[in-house]
């Protein structure tokens, strides 16, 4: 049958003018991330610290039962701000968060640029803000899954295993700190990843750039610190700055003898630069040649 005879029926519904258009964008980003090779494996790996630290919460309440096993490691099993700092600022967690960003985020904008999809987005009643919100939420979802969710879980487990609210009475700021840090790191990493994604039309180049910028900054810190022995070179490293600010959020001892405010300024400046790059690279007026 000729295609034109197959019929076209008008849609009798009404378009929703008061919707949140970032939602379908975020939902699609999350779905597509789960379809990527190795993504579930990587997500599983990123959850390993959560399992270990959750076990740690349990052991901390049954310390006498596990005395044989833990021997001199008892200090690591006191659930306090330092304990949370070791979780949130661990190299392992930050590394897997980065890998999640690469798999879920490197192509978020670069694929749209490569396949000319921006013009399809902006031919809809969609603002640049909606588009970027949708993409940011995709990444923030995974990052909050790895930070906010474990933090809440640890606090709940601590309350359940101890059978009291003594932990919250002793450290009342911890829930807010956990939420604050989770949002901060999710916001920073999301902007960082999206900005780099928007710089290239090739997902692979964007992936390499995301990893390279993170590790090279740390390598430079290592080199300069090795030569000059000045902890201020930690400001060169994205990872060290994140660790400094994580410690400050949680009210724990900083990793380096550098004011955490400096690190916060560096990270906020980087996030601001990323936001600027995004606004420049994602432009509605350039979508039709």
């Amino acid at each position: 049958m000729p295609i034109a005879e197959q019929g076209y029926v008008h849609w009798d519904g009404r378009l929703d003018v008061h919707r949140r258009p970032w939602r379908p964008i975020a939902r699609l980003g999350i779905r597509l991330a789960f379809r990527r090779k190795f993504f579930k494996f990587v997500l599983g790996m990123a959850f390993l610290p959560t399992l270990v630290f959750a076990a740690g919460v349990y052991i901390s309440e049954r310390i006498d039962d596990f005395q044989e096993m833990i021997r001199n490691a008892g200090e690591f099993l006191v659930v306090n701000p330092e304990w949370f700092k070791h979780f949130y600022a661990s190299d392992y967690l930050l590394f897997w968060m980065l890998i999640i960003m690469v798999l879920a985020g490197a192509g978020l904008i670069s694929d749209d640029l490569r396949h000319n999809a921006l013009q399809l987005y902006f031919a809809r009643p969609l603002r640049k803000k909606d588009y970027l919100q949708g993409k940011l939420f995709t990444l923030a979802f995974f990052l909050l899954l790895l930070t906010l969710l474990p933090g809440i879980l640890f606090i709940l487990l601590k309350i359940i295993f101890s059978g009291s609210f003594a932990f919250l009475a002793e450290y009342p700021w911890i829930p807010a700190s956990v939420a604050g840090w989770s949002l901060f790191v999710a916001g920073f990493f999301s902007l960082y990843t999206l900005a780099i994604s928007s710089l290239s039309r090739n997902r692979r180049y964007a992936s390499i750039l995301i990893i390279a910028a993170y590790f090279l900054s740390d390598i430079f810190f290592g080199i300069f610190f090795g030569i000059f022995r000045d902890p201020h070179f930690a400001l060169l490293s994205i990872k060290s700055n994140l660790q400094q600010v994580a410690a400050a959020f949680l009210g724990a001892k900083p990793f380096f003898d550098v004011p955490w405010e400096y690190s916060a300024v560096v990270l906020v400046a980087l996030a601001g630069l990323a936001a600027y790059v995004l606004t420049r690279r994602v432009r509605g007026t350039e979508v039709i040649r």
Partner: protein
Amino acid sequence: MEKSSLELRDIAFSYGPVRALQGVTVRIEEGACGLLGPNGAGKSTLLRILLGFLRPDGGEGQVLGHDIRKDAFGIRRLVGYMPEDDCFLPGMDAVTFTAYFGELAGMPRQEAMKRAHDVLYYVGLGEARYRLLETYSAGMKQRLKLAQALVHDPKLLFLDEPTANLDPQGRVEILDLIKDISSKKDIRVLISSHILTDIEVTCAAVVILNQGRVAAQGDLAALRQIDYSLYELRIKGEKEPYLQALGRARCRVQETEDGLLKVYLPAAFDRRELFRLAAGLGVQIRHFVKSRTSLEDFFAKTVGVD
């Protein structure tokens, strides 16, 4: 429904010092309309303005009753846009892709999914709707772009080079669809194309832009008749002197491979003069038929190219 699809009055736009559009006044009624013009004529800029991506420096206009300056979102809800470039999202199948853009247009999720199936069947992708878009051929991608433009049931379609990169059969099928959409489905269509025969086949009206201005607009049949008429001749005898005589009489002549002469007569030219010139040179006219002026002829004359 609004009677005019779009109406622009004295639209002007500049990219810095470069004037892209000036004094563009266009009114497009129901049905299908072709947007023609050489490169740099301002077609893309006009589309950008119609979709609300650019604010004109001057003038005013409405698309389906929505102000192009104040209500870009209102326009985009009612308009479907099929871009020229290959556009898709990797890792998706056609149903998800089409439903996704329906949802972005404001359709409820379930409705968008149901509607995606319908329009994919309509454009002839029903059997391939679960295939990954990366595996689609050029023709399938064209149909997919049409499907995403139709999914939210727009009142007006902007089609940018809809038959680009298509084989002859695919081209015919897409043109059939466009004709069906514009004539039977109560959807108005604005087609920007370089392929003039596509416009001839699908459109009843045309707007020709040249150097940022409207060079001609109106009903295609009427425009063809405005300035000159076309006759097809076969002659016996010395051809060159006769062709020279026609040239002196300000007739434009094209000769086809099989010896057919296509003679364009100026507006006030008496066709009997063709016979007088032939008789004077001892040439016999063996074949004399009044022919339709093609859009190509009209376009060439309007924008001043050969």
